[in-house]
């Protein structure tokens, strides 16, 4: 015992108890969430498994013979919607983030833009649906097409993509930029070779989250009128002429096709009275979750590959 011991009252037992309690609370909360998720997944699987088959993926929905219904149009609608949304939102979002973080001057105007982006991330999705209806469906006359849906969805996820990308870019240490500039690099060379590769994992995380959100969103698509009983996939009714020009022409037709996506199909089935439709809905949920899992898994693999490739 030294003289200074009298100055401290460690209360070690009490502190250890608080630490254990907090640990237990964390385990309990995490465990609770996992259990709830497990129960949900089990219920869905239990209800939907009897209708699940490879044919389920390759059949169109049907009101008359629900036991022969499938998610082909919805699955392909989702693939088209997500593909187009990614093609629009990722370059725009990452580009805006790079501009705001690396190029834009820090003044009142850019601060206003940043504040607005943060606010837009919190706007309810139905509002984006209304915007899409007014701008893309009516004003630009894209009709109720997969193009209108993708553009609406892009607007919806853009704020999230921009914010996540900005955070990732801001986290790149300034010493890296200085090192590049001191070697006579231009700003673009610095961004292209050092800032973006270092920020890529963070950007990818934001992109994955927003893509998952776009895949699950229903309200804005209902607003712009993604129909439910669609017995074809986008581009399925057009013939592509040979050659690149033919393919481009087919693509232009395809993105103007009406479409349905998995969440809307599921919602529609769940609304019906007969039990068979509820099973269809459950099977549709399993498909949606699987698609989401595949997409996220691919992104995780890509991110790991990116990080390993760095040297």
């Amino acid at each position, binding site marked *: 015992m030294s003289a200074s011991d009298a100055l401290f009252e460690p209360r070690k037992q009490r502190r250890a108890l608080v630490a254990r309690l907090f640990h237990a609370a964390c385990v309990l909360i995490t465990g609770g969430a996992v259990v709830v998720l497990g129960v949900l997944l089990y219920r869905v699987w239990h209800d939907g498994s009897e209708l699940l088959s490879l044919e389920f993926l390759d059949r169109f929905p049907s009101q008359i013979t629900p036991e022969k219904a499938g998610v082909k149009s919805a699955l392909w609608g989702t693939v088209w919607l997500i593909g187009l949304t990614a093609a629009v939102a990722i370059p725009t979002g990452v580009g805006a983030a790079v501009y705001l973080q690396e190029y834009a*001057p*820090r003044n009142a105007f850019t601060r206003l833009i940043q504040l607005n982006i943060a606010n837009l991330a919190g706007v309810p999705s139905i509002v984006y649906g209304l915007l899409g209806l007014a701008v893309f469906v009516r004003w630009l006359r894209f009709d109720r097409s997969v193009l209108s849906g993708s553009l609406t969805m892009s607007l919806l996820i853009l704020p999230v993509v921009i914010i996540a990308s900005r955070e990732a870019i801001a986290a790149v*240490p300034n*010493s*890296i930029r*200085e*090192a*590049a*500039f*001191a*070697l*006579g*690099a*231009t700003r673009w*060379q610095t961004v292209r*070779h*050092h800032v973006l590769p*270092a920020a890529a994992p963070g950007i990818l995380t934001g992109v994955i989250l927003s893509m998952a959100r776009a895949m699950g969103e229903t309200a804005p698509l209902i607003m712009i009128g993604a129909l439910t009983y669609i017995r074809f996939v986008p581009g399925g009714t057009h013939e592509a002429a040979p050659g690149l020009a033919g393919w481009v022409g087919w693509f232009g037709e395809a993105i103007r096709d009406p479409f349905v996506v998995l969440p809307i199909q599921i919602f529609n089935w769940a609304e019906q009275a007969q039990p068979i439709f509820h099973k269809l809905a459950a099977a549709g949920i399993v498909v949606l979750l699987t698609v989401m899992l595949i997409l996220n898994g691919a992104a995780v693999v890509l991110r790991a590959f990116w990080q390993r490739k*760095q*040297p």
Partner: protein
Amino acid sequence: MKLTGLEVRPPMTRTADSVRTSFVVEPKPVPERTPSVISIDRLSVLYGTHVAVKEVSMEIAERRVTAIIGPSGCGKSTLLRSINRMNDFIAGIGFQGAIRFRGRDIRDPGYDPIDLRRSVGMVFQKPNPFPKSIYRNVAWGAAINGYRGDLTQLVEDALKKAALWEEVKDKLSQSALALSGGQQQRLCIARAIALQPEVLLMDEPCSALDPIATARIEDLIDKLKAQYTVVLVTHNMQQAGRVSDYTAFMYMGELIEMDATGRIFTNPQVRKTQDYITGRFG
């Protein structure tokens, strides 16, 4: 001058410091005169209204080591970073006066800072290798500047000049981040050398390193001056005394005194310089 709590040392340490200083620095011969490469002409640098560098004029001699010493916040880093225009990125910075590199005003609108930085390399306070392979760290600067020779040979030469080749020649494709701090700093020197610069600016290059790594960098600086002009900012007076040919003492943005290192350390003309060197303040 800004003083943070960390820098306030008890008087005892100061006495010990001054004893050590006078012990380590033996009178150095005055170096042979060489032409001036960089000429700083009444340069003032302002951050908004704060004057960080105040009407500083100095000539940097070719193939010599010039040390800039002074207490924290005296403007020595600001001055150094003005020489290769690294301060351009700071919003609200203002310049008066001129810096001439080989007779040409570096702030001349026709002078691309990219050309300037190729000729005037920089090594930073904290080693900042790119999170890439050792090879790409050294090769990148040359590659983006359109180097037409053999890149592999260039990397080897630069690493040899930076006294790092023997330690890394078998792991050029490994990440530079796996190297020790001292090795990383020598890699940063190699990276700067690979651009075949004329001048190397070093901003307290040893402040994040242990004494052994510091000694290696100091040896390296001594070798580098055969080929390059080195400007070294340091707050370590012993280091300035050991490696530099000329020493400039700055205080509160002003250049107080500049002379051959041997003379500055043994016979400073200004009282303030003497006080700083003997550890009476700082």
